[in-house]
C-alpha cells in the first residue's frame, strides 16, 4: 500500500532533487553485418541500426510520460567497429563512423557508442585501422563516441597502445580545435572496460552480449545529497545505511523503466547500471554529496574515504533493487559535468593527483578533465598508463577522458555546453617529461592475483 508520504517523496525526488533515468541504451550486435566491401558493410550497418532502434526514442518518451520520470538520453551501443568492420578491405573506418552518425541521427538518439577497439593484449589489422581512424572520425561526426580498451587485470597493459592513444588524443584535439577539442570529450581510454556499459562515451556492445539488449543507467546524486542533509553529525554506519536505502529507491525506478522498455521494444533486458551520474545543474553533483558528509570542499583530506563509502553503499543498495546489475555501477566523478567538482578545481581544493586517488575507489576514472593545450602526447600517455595501472592492479574499471584544449592555459576555462558542461583548465605536473618511459612500448605483464598487499 502506498501512502501520501511515499507519493510526495517520489515526486520531490523528481522535481527538487533531479532524480532521473539517465539513459536507455540499446545494444545492437553488428557481427552479422560483416562484408569485404565497405560500402556494403556500411549499408548493412545503417539498415540494422535504423530497423532495430526505430522506436527507441518514442518508447523512451512514452515511458517518461507514463511514470512522470524524466528519461534524459536514448542511446545506442554497437559491437566494437574494429571487430565488426575487420573484414572490410579498406585502410580507414571513417566512412563507418559517418554511417553510424547518420543512422543515430535518423532514429533520433543523441549518442552512439562503439567506434571502439579492444587491444589489451595486442592489435589486429582492424584494431590498427580503427585507432588510426579515430581523430578524423570524431572530427567529421557529431554523435559518434569512441573507446579503446588497452589494459585488463587478466592481460596486463598494452603500452604500445598507451603511447599511441596519447598521440590520438592530441590529434583529435587538433582536428576539433575550433570546438575547443570537443572530439576528445567523445573519446575514452579504458582498462577493464565492461561490455555492457550503457553510459557514454565508453559504451559499446560487448562481444559476449546477446543480439540486442536494452540497458538502463540510473542517476540521482541530488537525491542522495538530500537524504544526507538530515543526518548532520550522524556516524558513518548511519550514513551508509541511508545511502543504501536511497540507492535502492533510485534503482527500483531504473528497473521499472528497463522492464517496460524491454517489453515494449521486444528486446531482452540487459542490465541496470547503478551509477550516480552528475550533471552541471546545481544540486546534481557527486562532489556535493561528499561535501555533505562533512568535507569543506571536495578534494580535502578524507575525500577518498567519503567516495569509497558512497561508491560501495550505492552498489549495495542498488543490487537488491534490480534483477541484473552491470556496467560501471558506482559514483562518477567527471569534472566538467559536476558543478561541485568545477568549484573545487577553481578554489584549489581538488587537483588531478587527488582525482587520481579518487579513481581507485570510484566507478570509473579521470573523466572530462580539460588540460593545457600544449600538454605533450607523452604526458597524456603517462596519465593513461597510471590510470590503467590502477585499474589493472585493483581489478576494476578505470578510464581516462582528458581534453587538451588548444590555446588554453591554467586559469582559463572551457565551455562544452549542455551536459558536457564547463571545465577550468586543470594543472598537470608536466614540467617533468614522461617521454622516455612512454617510448619504451611493449606490454606491462598481467599482475599477480595473490599476495595482494
Amino acid at each position, binding site marked *: 500500500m502506498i501512502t501520501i508520504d*511515499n*507519493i510526495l517523496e517520489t515526486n520531490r525526488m523528481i522535481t527538487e532533487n533531479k532524480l532521473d533515468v539517465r539513459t536507455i541504451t540499446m545494444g545492437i550486435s553488428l557481427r552479422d553485418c560483416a562484408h569485404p566491401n565497405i560500402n556494403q558493410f556500411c549499408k548493412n550497418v545503417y539498415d540494422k541500426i535504423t530497423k532495430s532502434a526505430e522506436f527507441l526514442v518514442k518508447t523512451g518518451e512514452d515511458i517518461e510520460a507514463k511514470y512522470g520520470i524524466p528519461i534524459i538520453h536514448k542511446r545506442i551501443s554497437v559491437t566494437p567497429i574494429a571487430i565488426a568492420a575487420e573484414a572490410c578491405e579498406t585502410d580507414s573506418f571513417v566512412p563507418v563512423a559517418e554511417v553510424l552518425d547518420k543512422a543515430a541521427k535518423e532514429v533520433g538518439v543523441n549518442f552512439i557508442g562503439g567506434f571502439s577497439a579492444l587491444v589489451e593484449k595486442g592489435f589486429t589489422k582492424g584494431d590498427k585501422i580503427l585507432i588510426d581512424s579515430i581523430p578524423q572520425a570524431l572530427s567529421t561526426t557529431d554523435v559518434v563516441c569512441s573507446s579503446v580498451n588497452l589494459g585488463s587485470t587478466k592481460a596486463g597493459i598494452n603500452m604500445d597502445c598507451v603511447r599511441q592513444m596519447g598521440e590520438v588524443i592530441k590529434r583529435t584535439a587538433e582536428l576539433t580545435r575550433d570546438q575547443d577539442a570537443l572530439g576528445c570529450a567523445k573519446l575514452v581510454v579504458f582498462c577493464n572496460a565492461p561490455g555492457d556499459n550503457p553510459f557514454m562515451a565508453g559504451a559499446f556492445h560487448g562481444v559476449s552480449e546477446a543480439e540486442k539488449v536494452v540497458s538502463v543507467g540510473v542517476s540521482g546524486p541530488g537525491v542522495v545529497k538530500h537524504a544526507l542533509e538530515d543526518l548532520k553529525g550522524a556516524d558513518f554506519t548511519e550514513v551508509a545505511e541511508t545511502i543504501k536505502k536511497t540507492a535502492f529507491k533510485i534503482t527500483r525506478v531504473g528497473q*521499472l523503466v528497463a522492464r517496460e522498455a524491454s517489453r515494449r521494444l521486444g528486446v531482452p533486458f540487459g542490465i541496470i547500471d547503478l551509477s550516480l551520474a552528475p550533471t552541471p545543474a546545481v544540486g546534481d553533483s557527486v562532489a556535493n554529496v561528499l561535501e555533505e558528509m562533512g568535507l569543506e570542499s571536495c578534494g580535502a583530506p578524507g575525500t577518498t574515504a567519503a567516495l569509497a563509502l558512497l561508491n560501495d553503499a550505492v552498489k549495495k543498495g542498488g543490487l537488491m533493487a534490480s534483477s541484473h546489475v552491470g556496467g560501471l555501477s558506482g559514483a562518477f566523478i567527471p569534472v566538467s559535468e559536476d558543478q561541485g567538482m568545477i568549484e573545487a578545481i577553481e578554489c584549489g581544493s581538488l587537483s588531478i593527483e587527488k582525482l587520481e586517488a579518487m579513481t581507485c575507489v570510484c566507478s570509473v576514472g579521470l573523466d572530462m578533465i580539460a588540460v593545457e593545450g600544449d600538454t605533450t602526447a607523452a604526458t597524456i600517455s603517462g596519465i593513461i598508463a597510471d590510470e590503467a595501472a590502477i585499474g589493472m592492479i585493483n581489478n576494476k574499471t578505470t578510464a581516462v577522458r582528458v581534453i587538451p584544449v588548444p590555446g588554453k592555459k591554467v586559469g582559463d576555462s572551457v565551455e562544452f555546453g549542455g551536459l558536457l558542461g564547463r571545465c577550468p583548465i586543470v594543472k598537470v605536473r608536466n614540467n617533468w617529461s614522461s617521454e622516455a618511459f612512454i617510448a619504451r612500448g611493449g606490454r606491462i605483464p598481467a599482475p599477480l592475483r595473490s599476495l595482494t598487499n
Partner: protein
Amino acid sequence: MKLVVTIFGKDQVGIIANVSNILAAKKVNITSVNQNIVDGFFNMIMMAELTDSSVKLAEIQKELKEKGHEMNLEIKVQNQEIFNIMHNV
C-alpha cells in the same frame, strides 16, 4: 490502470470540479482523495483508476495539463506503479 493525480497551486474556486469533470469524461474512477490548503496553496493527491482501455493515458495527461495551464496549477498524472516499486520491496 491505476493512476495518481497530484495537483498543486494557488487555491481557487473549481479546482476539484474541473479536474474531476475531465477525469469523469475519460471514464476515470476516483478511488481516494487527499486534499489540504496550506497558506493559500492547494495540495491534492487523488488515487484513480482508468477503466476504459480505449482511453490513452497521454490524452488524460494532455487535457489536465491544459487545464492546469489555464488555472495556473501544476497537475501531474502518473501510473501508480512507480510509487509501488520505489517504496515496496
